């Protein structure tokens, strides 16, 4: 306890130096919290976009279909899924088709769905901004931006052509989901119409499971499914955007580590200078009975205290920032611009940062690192102290 008091008194004695050190740690702590919250928030927004809008939490299909998503490799019959975490199941039939309006011809992926089943599985039916969701055959619901490109309106007919057949479908609704793939490319039609266009039963089963359990349920289902069928969780259903997310983590997490190391080095170098200036004081303390290891401990404690003050302030500031960005659509303009630039990415127009207590632990690493480095470098000065020399000099 007395060691702590001694260390604390040394820290307070050099207030300007301590304040500067704390500022460095505050900066690094805020950066750590924000970056971790941003990366996790980005990941969560991708999971939400793909699980709730673009794909499904889990999808079950033939292995051949996963390798080559052609309706010919679709399901021959609908398997029964027995797993306690399965909340809803609905068949889907996806096929590439040509969409023809009087003004434009465009290719795209068309999704045949069971209108009622889809309501229990996806948020798309609830995001119809104009018109209504599918009810019967002969109808189609489009992403709003796709409808603008094709120049079709609710109540008009759109021709959907595959290599096997063509249908004239009435546009009954336009979706505005705020998820790029849905708004820019979404084409939803009745499962039976998709069957008429392809001759296939369904390409895959979309499965709803609790958030965070997608991978585990997919693995468990794959073990119990009939041979030739495979279940995939939402992370495996994402397109190239998953690589972007993982790449960001790979880039930013080592960068954060480097930030923390530099902050710890700044703390330790200042402590080193401080220790050099106070070598006589340490010699006196040692002559009064304090062991060199206790003195080295005091040096480490000083570094930890100086960075600890910064950590506490940084945590307060960082969590306040995270709270704000997790409840306010601060990144909306940036995300909307990204959606315009990368409409096929499946990005959401909104991104809220994540807020987790564990970030404080990661940020506290700078305190631990400072103390450890202080023990290694300025601490060694104290351990190698020639007490008589400094006492004589006095």
């Amino acid at each position, binding site marked *: 306890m007395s060691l702590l008091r001694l260390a604390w008194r040394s820290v307070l004695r050099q207030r300007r130096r301590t304040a500067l050190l704390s500022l460095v740690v505050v900066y690094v702590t805020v950066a750590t919290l924000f970056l971790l919250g941003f990366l996790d928030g980005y990941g969560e927004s991708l999971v939400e976009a793909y699980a709730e809008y673009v794909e499904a939490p889990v999808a079950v299909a033939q292995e051949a279909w996963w390798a080559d998503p052609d309706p010919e490799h679709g399901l021959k019959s609908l398997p029964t899924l027995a797993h306690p975490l399965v909340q809803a199941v609905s068949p889907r039939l996806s096929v590439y*088709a*040509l969409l*023809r*309006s*009087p*003004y434009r*011809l465009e290719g795209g992926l068309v999704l045949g769905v069971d209108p009622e089943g889809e309501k229990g599985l996806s948020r798309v039916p609830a995001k119809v901004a104009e018109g209504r969701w599918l009810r019967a055959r*002969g109808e189609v619901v489009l992403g709003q931006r796709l409808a603008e490109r094709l120049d079709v309106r609710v109540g*008009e*007919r*759109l*021709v*959907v*052509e*595959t*290599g*096997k057949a*063509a*249908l*004239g*479908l009435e546009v009954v609704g336009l979706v505005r989901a705020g998820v790029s793939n849905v708004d820019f490319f979404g084409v939803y039609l009745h499962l039976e119409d998709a069957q008429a266009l392809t001759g296939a039963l369904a390409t895959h089963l979309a499965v709803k499971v609790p958030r965070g359990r997608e991978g585990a349920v997919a693995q468990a289902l794959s073990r119990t499914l009939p041979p030739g069928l495979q279940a995939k969780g939402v992370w495996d259903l994402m397109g190239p955007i998953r690589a972007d997310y993982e790449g960001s983590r790979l880039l930013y997490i080592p960068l954060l580590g480097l930030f923390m190391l530099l902050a710890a080095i700044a703390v330790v170098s200042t402590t080193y200078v401080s220790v050099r200036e106070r070598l006589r004081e340490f010699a006196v303390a040692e002559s009064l009975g304090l062991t060199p290891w206790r003195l080295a401990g005091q040096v480490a404690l000083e570094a930890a205290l100086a960075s600890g003050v910064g950590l506490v302030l940084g945590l307060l500031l960082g969590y306040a920032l995270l709270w704000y960005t997790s409840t306010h659509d601060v990144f909306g303009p940036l995300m909307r611009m990204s959606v315009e630039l990368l409409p096929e990415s499946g990005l959401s127009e909104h991104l809220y940062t994540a807020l987790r207590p564990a970030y404080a632990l990661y940020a506290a690493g700078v305190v631990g690192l400072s103390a450890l480095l202080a023990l290694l470098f300025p601490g060694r000065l104290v351990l190698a102290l020639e007490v008589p020399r400094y006492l004589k000099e006095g």
Partner: protein
Amino acid sequence: MRKVFPVLLILLAPVLAQTPLEKLRTALDRLRGPAHQAVYALWVERPGQSKLYRLKVYTDGERVHLRVLEPKAEAGQAYLSLGQDLYLYDPRLGRTLRLPPTGRSERFLGSDLTYQDLMGRDLEELFQVAEERGVLVLSPKPGAATPYGRVEVHLKEGLVERVLYFDQRGQAVRELRLGAYQRLDGAYLPREMELKDLLRPGYRTRLEVSEVQVGGVPERCFHPLYLERGC
């Protein structure tokens, strides 16, 4: 007898008169022309520029084999339409590809024409036909795979003279004009064709038929193998 014949004609007139659908069918049949080979000149006009294609065409009225002669960069490309099957030979790839049926509604050689315009029966298959003041008015059958809301077919002496396509908001979007019909071997062949995109000024495609040789076309011309070898 002389008195009876006009009366009989008047009585039978409703029976003998063609329905609008029959008129359309007859006009489309005549549009196909006789079996012949010819050179088609195709001008694809865009605002401020025009591109000319010269095509050698072989047809028996149902099937069509078409080879690009000019421009040099695209010479050797060949197309074969066999009912619903459409084949393309691309000399740069050195391969013959079978195009999906959707290819029939795609634009031909970057022009405003589609294969449907050239050889399709969509007007007959997808629309209900009525007649208003001498014009055949076609409205889509329920669920028909057409993006158009209405099509007007103007006939002159039983031959298609003008086809006007309307969108579903009542606006005319495409206009196809056919003219200079030549009677050949008991059939008719339009020697001039013009297609205008009414929504985009300056977008026009013209077709002129010349060097027509009426008569049987060798059967090999309608085999995909001969797309590469030449007919």
